[in-house]
């Protein structure tokens, strides 16, 4: 009989405790961030879309070599002796003409390994993270602006024997 009344009492008491807790939370400010209108302040080292400042790029290809997913595609050719000498913003002479510098962001795994070996610091991770597109091809970013002066001979595939 005693436990019966004790149970009733503890039932009522714990219900009141629960109601007090939820009532307190009713007035605590919500933690929700209203995303498209309100945006998060990303941390300084946030890693999102890659960006290459092509004027500074010397076309060394270290980024392409270190990339674990092979998302960077670089093609270069030697600049001719009679062309005017150009330098990157830190003074490194640019000996190669980079005519293809493509980054396929669908392959990128955001490890940022490519940004560390870059000798002129031209390849960086930006904080831009809203770049969804309707076509997968639009996720390949072309940074190169130069055209090749001496196009490489197109490799001929062995013609199927008749």
């Amino acid at each position: 009989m005693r436990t019966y009344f004790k149970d009733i009492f503890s039932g009522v008491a714990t219900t009141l405790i629960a109601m007090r807790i939820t009532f307190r939370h009713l007035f605590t400010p919500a933690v929700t961030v209203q995303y498209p209108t309100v945006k998060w302040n990303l941390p300084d080292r946030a890693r999102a879309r890659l960006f290459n400042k092509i004027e500074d790029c010397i076309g060394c290809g270290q980024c392409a070599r270190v990339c674990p997913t092979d998302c960077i595609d670089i093609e270069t050719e030697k600049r001719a002796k009679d062309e005017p000498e150009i330098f990157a913003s830190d003074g490194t002479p640019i000996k190669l003409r980079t005519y293809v510098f493509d980054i396929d962001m669908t392959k990128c795994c955001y490890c940022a390994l490519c940004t560390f070996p870059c000798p002129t610091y031209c390849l960086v991770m930006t904080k831009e993270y809203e770049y969804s597109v309707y076509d997968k091809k639009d996720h390949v970013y072309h940074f190169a602006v130069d055209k090749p002066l001496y196009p490489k001979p197109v490799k001929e595939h062995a013609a199927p024997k008749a």
Partner: protein
Amino acid sequence: MESIRQLLASIPNYGALPELLRDFIPMLVSCVIILLYVAVLGMFLVWLERKVSAHMQDRLGPMYVGGWHGWAQSLADGIKLLLKEDIIPAAADPLLFKLAPIMVFVGAFAAFVVLPFGMASIVADLNIGVLYLLAVASLSVVGIIMGGWASNNKYALYGGMRSAAQIISYEIPAALALMTVVVQVGSLSMQDIVTAQQGGLHKWFIFRNPFTFVAFFIYFVCSLAEVNRTPFDIPEAESELVAGYHTEYSGMRFAFFMLAEYANMFVVAGIATTVFLGGWTQILPAALVPQLVPGPILFSLKTLFLVFVQIWLRWSLPRLRVDQLMYLCWKVMLPVSMVLILGVGFLAVYWK
């Protein structure tokens, strides 16, 4: 309805209409008014529930639709449900399946007939009002078990069975708790019960004597069980039974179940307001403050407060087990309400 009849009588040439029509039109008008009230109320309560639950969990809830705090979210959901495909499972019993949501809704809707919104704002002041309410409220059990059976789905059937067992058991202590007040008033009419509480806070039955004070809480807890709200939501236990008796329903039929659920919440809170919290009477006595707020608004506010407490409880408490549910009903609520009836009877006889 009396006031609607008088309003209609002021229309010129209204008396020229045949007798049958003059009886029928006020009924139709009051039905339409209640139907609109229930529909708007249902949508408002769904929105309120979502907002309150969100804020209790430190979220925001719907924020976009309609501009201000997502007030039109339920409207958008309603339109979505209207446009959805109406699926009737191949193995279901089509007639019962179609009838069940209507049955549940009629049960909720019919209870509004005797809810006294104000001195003159009541559709029909039946002299057996409380009895009628108890009878009509249990009509929804028929619809629920009908839907559970007709769906031909084990989860739905489980939900329906649990709901029936729960509602039928909790009706007894709920009715006994209401009887404590009926004994004191000496009338089953809702308006008589309200007028007996006129004159301010201290005249309300919840504060009249200790027996009715406890009876209010007994009734409130039992009413939670009757409308399948947490902590008594085992018929809809979403973690065990998918969705309970309305698992197979979609589109507008589901919306009817939903609307009936929220209308039922308002009805049971309205009964508690009428019987224990003074219905449409003013909160403070006339000697202290001028009686400015109109009755229907006061009634709605008091009822909405109780609905808020229902929502509040839902997001505070975990679900009971089936055996705990039955323990609470038969071994706690029932004996206590029996004692209350005895005590009130004693008071009514010896201490007038």
